[in-house]
């Protein structure tokens, strides 16, 4: 406790995102019907980066949405009220192949909330989950489809994804 351990640096994050963007294109046999949806806030920035990388590979800019899961959380009356931010979904999700992007996969509860939110915007053909770090301790039957890095952590630790877009240097640390 109290110690910071760097598990990924700028280059590492870059390589992972490059790999995941190729995997997305490969698994979906191209990007027709593929849309990216980032979970605020970390997932939103990662989704933006994936959008750029996929454009470099396929030459098409795939649609990007942002979802704020605050209103779908299951712990609202147990904590201080979280600050609500905007959800932006400028397209219908009907029959789309949705790549949901998050920075850290932990209990699976945020993913559950995000999926509930997505269902309010249409009926996607499928939803796939991409995460930068899978830290274990999943509590729901949900698994990511694209994993940047697996890390074993304890409940006391926290995994922080720091990104340039948030005003930090790109890195992932375990605290």
């Amino acid at each position, binding site marked *: 406790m109290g110690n910071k351990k760097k598990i990924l640096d700028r280059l590492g994050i870059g390589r992972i995102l490059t790999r995941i963007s190729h995997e997305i294109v490969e698994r979906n046999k191209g990007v027709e019907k593929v849309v990216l949806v980032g979970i605020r806030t970390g997932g939103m920035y990662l989704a933006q980066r994936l959008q750029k990388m996929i454009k470099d590979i396929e030459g098409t800019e795939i649609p990007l949405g942002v979802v*704020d899961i*605050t*209103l*779908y959380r299951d712990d*609202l*009356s*147990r*904590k*201080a*009220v*979280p*600050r*609500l*931010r*905007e*959800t*932006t979904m400028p397209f219908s999700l009907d029959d789309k192949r949705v790549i949901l992007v998050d920075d850290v996969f932990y209990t699976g509860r945020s993913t559950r909330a995000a999926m*509930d*939110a997505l269902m*309010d*915007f*249409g009926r996607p053909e499928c939803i796939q989950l991409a995460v930068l770090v899978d830290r274990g301790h999943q509590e729901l039957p949900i698994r990511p489809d694209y994993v940047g890095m697996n890390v074993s952590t304890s409940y006391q630790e926290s995994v922080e994804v720091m990104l340039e877009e948030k005003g930090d240097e790109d890195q992932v640390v375990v605290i």
Partner: protein
Amino acid sequence: MIWQRKHILGMRDLEAEEINLILETAESFKEISTRTIKKVPTMRGKTVVNLFFEPSTRTRTSFEIAAKRLSADTINFTVSASSVSKGETLIDTARNIEAMNPDIIVTRHSAGGAPYLLSKYVNSSIINAGDGAHEHPSQALLDMLTVKEQKGKLKGLKLAIIGDISHSRVARSNIFGFTKMGVEVRVAGPATLIPVDIEKMGVGVFYRIEQAIEEADIIMMLRIQMERQKGQLFPTLREYSRFYSLDLKRLKLAKEDVTIMHPGPINRGIEISPEVADGPYSVILNQVTNGVAVRMALLYLLAGGGDLD
């Protein structure tokens, strides 16, 4: 900042920081009303009671839609159908409703201070939806959201509130709210409809509409509330209309990009001419749309947060 407040009783006791949080939350809520499925599960299992001792259609409907879009259960309890007419006191009525365990009670009463009294006797959160000529905080907040949307800011703007200031809870809440956010507020109306000492609330007082709306960024027209007035406060409605109504000619005195607001219901041809009410500067219907978003924000903020850490 972390939201700590349990009740929304008036603009007077809200801090500028809290007002900003409510407005920002409301801005995020606006998007939900534009979806095909206009509902989020946030308040599933919570109960909101609309306890109205005074007639109201738009405010009650607005609160009801707001609660429903957040998946709360809503019950409307109105005076005509209640036991108040059978002699029950306000506190007894509230305790009876409390016994059914609602989470939030939205209340309107003809007596100023009634929501405050309720908040002392019940455990639910209380939202004041208008008490006498005292306060109407959700209306002021939706007005502030509308202005913020139109002008991109609040600080430094000039707001003119015209009409029956004495009987208007909307005016009072707006004066508290807008002055807190750095808006210069002016009021104008016949001397009989302007409360004594209103300058102490930090507003400029005028008795001619022309002076008050000069260079104004926002003009808010109020309805003459015949139902609240006792005695003869001005000669005739026709005369009032001649001196205080907002028409196209007077409108020229204000800033070129002036925004016209009205809390409704409007009396066409009395305080506002139809050309102005339906004109390009009028945001009267945006106010109604924003009302739902602001009320969703209030319900959301009050419903969350069990133990604050």
